[in-house]
């Protein structure tokens, strides 16, 4: 499980909560810098900085389309670090919503005790 510490690898790249939010936003769709600025409500230098880090470790790729740069998630790069998606800051907020759905479900079909 040990890994060498390098300045920029995927693990470090996703250690920053803003970059995790960015990955979430990029899942399933491509975005330009301007679209990302609008979507996230961050300023352009901040968006560019975080996209730059994600690009450096290969988590996103960039291509030019006219005068725009379009960013796309390389989800395959996330495979080694995918635990992050269920840990940390949003774990309980999300799980409490699952509990609500589950309680509704078992009550609507009648609680059966064994």
């Amino acid at each position, binding site marked *: 499980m040990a890994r060498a510490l390098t300045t920029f690898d995927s693990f470090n790249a996703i250690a920053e909560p803003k970059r995790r939010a960015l990955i979430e936003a990029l899942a399933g769709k491509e975005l330009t810098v301007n679209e990302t600025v609008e979507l996230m409500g961050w300023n352009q230098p901040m968006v560019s900085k975080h996209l730059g880090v994600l690009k450096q470790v290969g988590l996103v790729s960039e291509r030019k389309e006219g005068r725009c740069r379009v960013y796309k998630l390389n989800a395959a790069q996330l495979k080694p670090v995918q635990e992050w998606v269920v840990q940390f800051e949003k774990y309980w907020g999300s799980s409490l919503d*699952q509990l609500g759905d589950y309680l509704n479900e078992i009550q609507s079909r009648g609680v059966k005790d064994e």
Partner: protein
Amino acid sequence: MSDDNEIKVEPTILTREYDAPRLLVYEAWTQVEHLKNWQFPFKGFTCEFVTTDISPGGSTLHKMITPDGHEMWLLTKYEELNPPESLVFRQYMSNEAGDILPNPQMPNWPKELRTTIVLDEEDGKTQLQLIWQPVNPTKEEAEAFEATRADHDKGWGGGLEQLHGYLGTL
């Protein structure tokens, strides 16, 4: 770095109202037959328990399985159980043997987090409070917890469900 015990972090308190009697909500937290059906952050996950001692001083070991087949093990140590009002536990990432693992993805995330569940019943509905607090955090851990506070009550967007679906096709 030092003086770890000096650092105080305000707990995060999440609240929910459930249209269910308190006893049922309490059982959902303390019976494996219920826990395995909901204690994960997305639909499509499954949950398997290999040890199940939900009692003061007891522990459970379970794995969450993502829709794309990735497994994560969690160790839960129970401190207090006060049916049907409250329970207190700590949960850790672990391996399948129940050995607690560090989080390489976020090295400064608090190693010890205590979770307290408090349930109140009003008019047939249950008010839940989840109190989440780092235990004896280092300065770095306290800062990491604080930095993400605004996200603690957010669910995942649809984006990550898509991501899981996509990871499953690779």
